[in-house]
């Protein structure tokens, strides 16, 4: 999957939890889920669960630890997809 396609998929996933529309409209690799999109930290679990379902992967605790921004999420998804 290209980076652009992956970012588009991530955009769809995070959309229901975003509190800052401006951050969402400018979403890119450097976007932070909490400080830029103002996603509630309890909803970050929902983002992670939705990513697991969408890509049919399992995100372990060590990966979850880094799941704070788009870039980390892309790296984790790509690693987990490659392991399949």
């Amino acid at each position, binding site marked *: 999957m290209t980076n652009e396609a992956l970012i588009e998929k991530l955009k769809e996933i995070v959309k229901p*939890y975003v*509190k*800052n529309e401006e951050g969402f409209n400018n979403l890119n690799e450097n976007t932070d889920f909490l*400080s830029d999109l*103002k996603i*509630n*930290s*309890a*909803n*970050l*679990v*929902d983002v*992670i*669960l939705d990513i*697991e379902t969408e890509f049919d992967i399992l995100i372990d*605790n060590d990966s*979850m*630890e*880094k*799941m*704070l921004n788009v870039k980390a999420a892309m790296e984790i998804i790509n690693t987990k997809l490659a392991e399949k």
Partner: protein
Amino acid sequence: MTGNDIVDMRVAATESNWRRKGFLEKIFSLQEQEYIKDSCAPDEMVWKLWTMKESAYKAYTRQFGGRFYTPQKFSCTVLSATTGLVVFNNIYYQTNTITTKNYIYSIARPAGVENPDLINSYFYLPQTHYYKTQSFIYKKIIACYNSVTGQIKKNLAVVKDKNGIPFLSCGIDLQVPVSITHHGQFAAFTIH
């Protein structure tokens, strides 16, 4: 080194479905899942444990730095209806929790340290758009610190460091740690 966290129960009920598959397992240890299962008010227990973890995380990162998402590793023990203990990386935090039907509010402080906060305040927010909320809370903090210490308001500002940890800046060389939390219609701060 204090941390705090507030959850608006009405908003939590609409924003989060903790009963969805995998949710509890990602956040809570087996013992904490038992607390929830055995509770006669599971919604309250979920958000009580969450605010305990989140407030301890804020206290920990204020002291040791870093930024990470490992709620499950902040291990909670409920001691009473209002008190608890959270352990992370062998660092112990004692927590105090206020539970009402509208909100749950926890404050975490290093265990065994008698260092009461200068000011503790929690209040109702007039609107919920995040940037208006932020400036409303900052004004409250400044007004409150002014009334307690007599520091002139125009010398006071709430600033965040590069990790997003807030301080009250008083003139050139004094930075006072302040913990801030808000969710839905409720907000709280402590000035240490």
